[in-house]
């Protein structure tokens, strides 16, 4: 994978190379192997490369044979072999064996519609010199990032915000509305970013610059209008669906193993990554390498299950054991890469894991994200189902018991009374009619963190009522979908690209030049799952029913049948040592000190101090306390790194990026 950046002057004046060149440096961690630059009048493109396919031929920026188009491309087109064959049949010539050139020729053949033929993960900028058209595109689900900003007469774009900010004249300003969204939905809603005037191209969208005009248009979106909502699915149909899902996942994994370097796999010890590991092992043979995170905290650690899979599938395995101190130590670096506040420390162990993968000589890993969203895995789906079931008979004494059974790992919840659960989960007779029903408990709870913000920030938010910003982004037909489909849509459209694939995905893997590939996010798999009955995804309360039926035979029984455990890392405990009641790292004290909080102006020092004291005493145990603490600290770090010390950040990053390129 790689980093891309570029600029186009809308008034047609030539690009100044000395303004463009600084944009490549902050991207070096994404592509340490090579750098390249292209200029054609008002257009400039830069590229930092991590060589994975056609190591010698795939240099970028790349022009087509006719030299009528040029591309910088970050990502992989997994069906490039088939596309190349198809295009050659149509008379296109290829100078390389790389997927990059496939996009160029596919564009020549289909124009802006070329993306519909691509199976992969991408962010690219393609300059069509003939039409004088710049074409930016981001993949269907938002696996790879692409940001842009208007600066005077220029449009500037890059794989990461820091590269956009390296272009002279970009104002670095906090977007307070995006901050409110992070502290409600866990991420800004695209196209917003934490930086005012810097935007992200939403997943499944293209941006086109033509005749001095910029237009952003959607080419792909999740759709549950075709969902089979029949009450019953016959056993024969069920069997057919299981076979089809199995076939699709096998093929999706197979084409994601295409690379001219070895491919490894992340193994969490859960169902999804174990299935992917098993499928990959089938194609790779005995040499598959797997990588895992382990924790000291036994409540979070999954190594017993990881070892079970490693034994059963005989993979070559390496583990990184993360201590609380280590997680706290790397958090500032993690924020430099996420470029966004985070409410959990969960990305930090993945940052450490990608380092281990890199040190083991790998550039590419398969990983299991996307199954929870689209195969019916998340507890929030189950929760919504139970709440709707309970709301249909509000006075039931037995129904609430289902909710405490739903979260066996939240010991605090087990002791709650039905009245408490009813209030906590917002159960009343009217609830299920609300289109956002499934997610209101999560967002409502997260939004309680707003009390920590300064009076100025809260004044700036005045007039923003609860979830209208989210509602405005929903498709018109959203309200007509069933409860389960709506919940899946909200996860897949917002949390997946906004947090899981970015702060916890691309940004953590690419911090150490590791490309992650997601077999569950093959669009054929996602589309198949959006057509089948929700009952097949969650049968009563059995999550991922069809996926298990299709493929659990390939993994150890203990893993297939284990209760679901969400991936979490220690939060408050990574920052404050409960034994000594002290911060584990000096920067934590510094960033959360009343003086620093006051100076940066986002939060109110008094309540933050109370939260810090609570955390020091080891009493920050609830979701809200932890989310607020990590959220406040990472916001402070973001301000410190990007608003106060950006220049130093650039030179540190350049030094840090001095990783030895992997050559094979």
């Amino acid at each position, binding site marked *: 994978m790689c980093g891309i950046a570029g600029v186009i002057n809308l008034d047609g004046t030539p690009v100044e190379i000395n303004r463009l060149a600084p944009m490549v440096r902050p991207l070096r961690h994404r592509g340490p192997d090579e750098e390249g630059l292209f200029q054609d009048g008002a257009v400039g493109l830069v590229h930092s490369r991590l060589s994975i396919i056609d190591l010698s031929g795939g240099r970028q920026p790349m022009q087509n044979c006719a030299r009528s188009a040029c591309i910088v491309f970050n990502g992989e087109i997994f069906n490039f072999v088939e596309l190349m064959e198809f295009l050659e049949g149509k008379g296109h010539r290829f100078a390389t064996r790389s997927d990059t050139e496939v996009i160029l020729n596919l564009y020549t053949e289909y124009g802006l519609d070329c993306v519909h033929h691509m199976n992969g993960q991408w962010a690219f900028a393609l300059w069509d010199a003939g039409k004088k058209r710049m074409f930016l595109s981001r993949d269907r689900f938002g696996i790879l990032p692409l940001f842009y900003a208007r600066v005077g007469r220029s449009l500037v774009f890059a794989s990461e915000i820091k590269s956009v900010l390296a272009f002279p004249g970009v104002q670095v300003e906090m977007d307070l509305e995006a901050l409110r969204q992070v502290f409600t939905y866990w991420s800004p809603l695209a196209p917003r970013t934490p930086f005012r005037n810097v935007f992200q191209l939403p997943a499944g969208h293209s941006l086109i610059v033509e005749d001095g005009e910029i237009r952003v248009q959607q080419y792909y979106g999740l759709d549950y209008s075709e969902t089979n909502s029949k009450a019953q699915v016959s056993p024969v149909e069920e069997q057919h669906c299981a076979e089809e899902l199995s076939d699709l996942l096998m093929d999706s994994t197979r084409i994601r193993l295409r690379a001219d370097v070895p491919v490894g796999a992340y193994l969490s010890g859960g169902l999804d990554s174990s299935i992917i590991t098993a499928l990959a092992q089938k194609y790779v043979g005995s040499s598959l390498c797997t990588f895992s995170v382990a924790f000291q905290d036994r409540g979070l650690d999954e190594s017993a299950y990881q070892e079970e899979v490693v034994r059963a599938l005989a993979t070559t395995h390496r583990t990184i054991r993360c201590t609380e101190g280590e997680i706290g130590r790397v958090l500032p670096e993690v924020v430099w890469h996420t470029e966004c506040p985070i409410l959990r420390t969960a990305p930090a162990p993945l940052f450490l894991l990608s380092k281990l993968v890199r040190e083991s000589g790998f550039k590419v890993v398969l990983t299991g994200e996307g199954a929870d969203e689209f195969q019916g895995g998340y507890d929030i789906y189950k929760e919504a189902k139970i709440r709707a079931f309970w709301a249909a008979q509000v006075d039931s004494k037995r129904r609430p018991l289902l909710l405490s059974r739903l979260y066996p790992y939240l010991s*605090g919840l087990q*002791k709650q009374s039905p009245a*408490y659960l009813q209030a*906590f989960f917002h159960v009343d007779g009217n609830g299920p009619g609300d289109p956002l029903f499934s997610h209101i408990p999560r967002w409502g709870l997260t939004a309680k963190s707003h009390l920590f913000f300064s009076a100025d920030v809260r004044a700036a938010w005045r007039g923003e009522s609860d979830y209208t910003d989210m509602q405005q982004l929903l498709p018109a037909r959203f309200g007509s979908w069933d409860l389960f489909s709506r919940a899946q849509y909200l996860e897949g459209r917002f949390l997946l690209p906004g947090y899981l694939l970015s702060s916890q995905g691309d940004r953590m893997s690419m911090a150490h030049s590791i490309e992650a590939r997601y077999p569950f996010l093959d669009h054929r798999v996602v589309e198949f799952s959006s057509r089948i009955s929700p009952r097949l995804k969650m049968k009563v309360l059995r999550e991922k029913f069809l996926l298990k039926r299709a493929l659990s035979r390939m993994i150890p029984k203990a893993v297939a049948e284990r209760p679901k455990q969400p991936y979490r890392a220690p939060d408050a405990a990574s920052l404050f040592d409960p034994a000594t009641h002290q911060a584990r790292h000096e920067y934590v004290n510094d960033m959360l000190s009343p003086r620093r909080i006051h100076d940066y102006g986002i939060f109110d020092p008094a309540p933050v101090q*109370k939260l810090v004291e*609570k955390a020091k005493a080891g009493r920050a145990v*609830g979701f809200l306390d932890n989310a607020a603490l990590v959220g406040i600290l990472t916001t402070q770090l973001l301000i410190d790194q990007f608003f106060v010390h950006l220049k130093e950040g650039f030179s540190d990053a350049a030094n840090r990026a001095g990783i030895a390129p992997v050559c094979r």
Partner: protein
Amino acid sequence: MQQIERELRQFVVDNFLFGEGEEQLSNEDSFLEKGLIDSMGILNLVNYVQEKFAVTVADEELIPENWDSVRRVAEFVESKRKAAA
């Protein structure tokens, strides 16, 4: 009783309101209805009560009647102490 209520109130204000909006909290306000305490919070409160006031709380005493407002908790603590005396 007043002393217990004052201390409990301070704990709730510090730990669940983080000192914000204290004037809007009356001692009779329901924690549940006001959405003050998240699912782990009640246990936080229970631990505090056990340590601070040296009472032991049984599982069956974890009911909203005992834990849903500053006043109710104070009354519960008071009754436990009387029973122990």
